[in-house]
């Protein structure tokens, strides 16, 4: 009896948690433009509609390019910082690691507004460069965190053993450190990709009238319309996320990344 009750509670909460995703999924196959679930004659018309919307296609292209570049840039710039924090002694180390996690503590609207104020005079709004710079700050904490986690769980003595047996600092990094921490790096890069790809608020501020990302296009579309085309698009996005989550899970294990 008690068990059944708690089972029901858990199930209901799970349903609540998954409700929008389920709703989106069902609605995407609607045959009318109404938002209610209408599975009498499932159709793919909204998928076609979505694919013929040039704003979505353009937005998807921008989002994809931005997210790809951001995840590489953030690795190239973030990993050395994590390396310094984990492996070197220097004054102000704690302050530095707090600094690199601090973007997580500032509301997106605030960062977005600041970026808009900087970008507008420089004509960087609505450009790839602008969006990439904007996404750097909010993705770098994740890369630093996953890299630090990898560096801390792996014994320094492997690197020391390489050094003693004749490897210089660079060789040690590329032959020993990098291969050992690569699962953490991949996880960090995937997280950075997802965050950049899904980010809406900051992108909205820096979009101006120029190029913009898919979430921003969706946001703008939704301000005036809410037909199932968005549902179809959302289903695709959710599938991409699921795919990436599976990648993380395979490479390092989801809980490890989330708990770090």
């Amino acid at each position, binding site marked *: 009896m008690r068990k059944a009750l*708690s089972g029901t509670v*858990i199930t209901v*909460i*799970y349903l*609540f*948690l*998954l*409700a*929008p*995703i*389920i*709703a*989106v999924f069902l609605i995407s196959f609607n045959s009318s433009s*109404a*938002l*209610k*679930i209408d599975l009498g004659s499932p159709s793919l018309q909204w998928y076609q509609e979505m694919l013929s919307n040039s704003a979505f296609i353009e937005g998807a292209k921008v989002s994809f390019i931005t997210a790809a570049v951001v995840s590489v*840039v953030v690795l190239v*710039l973030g990993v*050395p*910082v994590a390396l*310094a924090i984990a492996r*070197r002694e220097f004054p102000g180390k704690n302050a*530095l690691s707090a*600094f*690199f996690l601090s973007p997580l*503590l*500032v*509301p997106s*609207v*605030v*960062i977005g*507004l*600041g970026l*808009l*104020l*900087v970008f507008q005079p420089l004509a960087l709004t609505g450009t790839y460069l602008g969006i990439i*710079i904007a996404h*750097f*700050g909010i993705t*770098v904490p994740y890369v630093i965190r996953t890299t630090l986690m990898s560096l801390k769980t792996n014994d320094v003595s492997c690197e020391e053993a390489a050094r003693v047996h004749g490897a210089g*600092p660079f060789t040690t990094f590329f032959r020993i450190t990098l291969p050992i921490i690569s699962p953490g790096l991949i996880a960090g890069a995937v997280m950075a990709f997802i965050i950049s790809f*899904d980010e*809406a608020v900051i992108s909205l501020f820096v979009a101006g009238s120029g190029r913009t990302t898919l*979430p921003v296009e*969706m*946001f703008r579309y*939704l301000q005036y319309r*809410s037909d199932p085309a*968005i*549902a179809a698009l*959302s289903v695709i*996005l*959710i599938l991409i*996320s*699921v795919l990436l*989550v599976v990648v993380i899970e395979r490479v390092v294990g*989801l809980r490890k990344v*989330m*708990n770090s």
Partner: protein
Amino acid sequence: MVTLQTTQLRTGGLPVKEKRSAKQRAGTLGLILPGSIGLFVGFVLPLIVMIRMSFNQHGTGGQLVETLTFENYGRALSDPFYWQVIGNTLWLGLLCGGLAVILAYPIALFLTRTTSKWKGVLIALAIAPLLTSAVARTYGWIAILGDQGIINGFLMDTGLLSGPIRLNNDMPGVIIALVEILMPYAILAMISGFGRLNNSLEEAAGTLGASRFKVFMRVTLPLTLPGVFTGFLLVFVLSISSFVTPRLMGGGRVFILATEVYNEATQTLNWPLASALSVILLILFGLLVAGYQQLTKRFED
């Protein structure tokens, strides 16, 4: 003669060591400099520019006047509307934080305790929404709660209602959607905070004759409270800075700091005021996080 000796000394032990650690220091700098510059440009500089902007003036013709004035703060803090906005923001945070924690707690407890072979899948299901776009999920809620949405549609089709009830386009809809969107963070925070909880402790209390309720109140709850605190703080902070959901689901009737900042910045184009509101949001944010941390620290001691 003396100078010769000192130069000879200089090539000996200590200076070499100094050279070595100087090289090391340069190496460390080389590691942290590029990333730091990136973060400065993409994060610190915008904040500085924004703070400076908040002391400028929005001219009568809409042009920007460079000065140093507290006018914007004065305007924001003397206008009852903005007090209402601040109040709404805090209220939204409290309500979402509270509701999210209440709903997340049973899930987190269940996920910590379960020995099911589906545990991994269940955890993934609980936190995977985190990795799907907030815009997509907000849309899902619009579809569920909207005037022509799933619930109203169902109620009207079955004849239970003649016209739609307003679930969307107001505070309740925003809260329902935000709670759902932010709940995974609370679940995550709790799962990692529940590490100290293990079944044997509770079982021990049970065998010592404590009732289920007592076991929960005396063992389970105190051990899980730190995780609950973290979860609440996280959701609170994320909801007072949320923007997409209040904007899309508020139907223009939900006024919180984030939406006002956006309006002033992109519609009214009053940058100084938008900046001042941002600074207020930032300060509110900082005070709450700091105060909350003090509180939990005292509680845990």
